[in-house]
């Protein structure tokens, strides 16, 4: 091993140790759900967007949220990292606990919360910067600039993009294909090493091959992160998720169970009707 490779390897080891140290705290709470939702409801002005929701989101699993348009699934997702705070008319009631701490408590900093609960959106939205700078962006803001190269490479590897961009990291992210841009956004989201990744229809703007790559990636990501994904594509939910939450019209969480149960033998007739196409 050359001295350069040795230095690289040591840096990787140090970052891994740092991350493992952060994780050790999490693992002492292993049996607890990472997110506990209690009577969470949302209003836009006078209009109720979400009826009281109760759910436990398991750690390091993929939880899919499905339902017809306007059923509140994206509204629910935005509640998790308080993205709804940015909508003036939106009011949120109830509690949403992240490792036992209500994220709506007054002393919670939404920006700090979003470092722990990252988000990937429907349309790839890379910054008009280089591939490298996109991934490094959040790390620089957090001051994690030591061994930046190693951290960027690590995030790109985890996002299954490294082999496609390693020799053009200085090129504009906007020159990547749609599928590559979305994986870059995933790399950007995981670079600061969040615990939870929220994904709002992350593959709906992609072609089938790019979709398959993102789906494979989501399953891999669940080894290290808790993934909550909103999708209109029921087959996608069936393919990649461990748990599925079904919201139906009126913003009601009608059924939340193991994905196999939801797609093989759901308990609720309205859920059965929705997923078999008899409703919605």
């Amino acid at each position, binding site marked *: 091993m050359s001295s350069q490779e040795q230095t690289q390897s040591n840096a990787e080891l140090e970052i891994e140790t740092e991350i493992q140290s952060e994780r050790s705290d999490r693992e002492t709470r292993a049996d607890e759900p990472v997110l506990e939702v209690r009577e969470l409801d949302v209003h836009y002005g006078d209009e109720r967007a979400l009826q009281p929701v109760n759910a436990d989101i398991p750690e390091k699993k993929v939880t899919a949220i499905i339902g017809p348009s306007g059923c509140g699934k994206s509204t629910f997702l935005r509640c998790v990292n308080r993205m709804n705070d940015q909508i003036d008319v939106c009011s949120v009631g109830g509690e949403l606990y992240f490792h036992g701490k209500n994220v709506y408590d007054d002393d919670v900093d939404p920006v700090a919360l979003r470092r722990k609960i990252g988000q990937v959106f429907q349309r790839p939205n890379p910054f008009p910067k280089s591939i490298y700078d996109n991934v490094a962006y959040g790390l620089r803001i957090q001051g994690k600039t030591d061994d930046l190269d190693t951290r960027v490479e690590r995030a790109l590897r985890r996002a299954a993009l490294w082999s496609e961009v390693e020799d053009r990291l200085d090129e504009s992210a906007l020159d990547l294909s749609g599928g590559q841009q979305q994986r870059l956004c995933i790399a950007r989201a995981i670079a600061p090493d969040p615990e939870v990744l929220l994904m709002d229809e992350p593959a709906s703007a992609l072609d089938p091959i790019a979709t398959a790559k993102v789906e494979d990636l989501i399953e891999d990501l669940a080894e290290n992160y808790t993934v909550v994904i909103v999708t209109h594509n*029921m*087959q996608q939910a*069936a393919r990649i998720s461990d748990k599925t939450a079904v919201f139906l019209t009126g913003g009601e969480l009608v059924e939340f169970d193991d994905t196999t149960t*939801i*797609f*093989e*033998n*759901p308990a609720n007739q309205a*859920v*059965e009707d929705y*997923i*078999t*196409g*008899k409703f919605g």
Partner: protein
Amino acid sequence: MSRWAYRAELRDLREELLAMSDLVCEALQRALDSLEERDAALARRVIEGDDEINERYLAIEGHCTELIARQQPVAGDMRFVVATFKISTDLERIGDLARNLATYATRGERHAYPEVDAGTIGRHVLAMVREAVAAYAAEDPSACYTVAERDAEIDRLCEAASGIVVRDLLAERGPDESAESLLADASRLFLTIRDLERVGDHAVNVAARTLYMVEGNDDLLA
């Protein structure tokens, strides 16, 4: 394919299975009659009719495969398609067994073992198949359990019938019975009893798949 056309396809699949079950029950009925009456002509009709049952089975298999490929059914629809496919396999096997039974009927007169009442066992298993198919048609879970419970009686009757043949073989028959015809009779009877017992097993499978289809309940799946 529109959602309306998709639902029509599911209804068509159900009708295809019921039509196939009618053919299978008719074949089994005729096979039992040919055994009882030693009617070689009727037996040959059963044997020749098996090709049509096989064709129906392949058509249902193709229909299920297409529905899975193009519609990706889930929940109750998925259970229906999977159960229908599996039941068609059981019905096809019952058709094969009916052909076997008809074949035994073409192989000469029965000389020995008048006390072995294969006809009664046959009537029992035919009734089981009909009840299992009726449970599928009516989506009736309790009828599925009734079919499964009847299988114990079939097993008991088959065991008793086999016992009679074995005991007679061991005791040897009188000088009027040639060893060759005795052995041929015994073999045919063993095969008949075995095949009837298998028909009963397939009827239970039909009931088990129907129970899964209706309730997602795998209680009766072995």
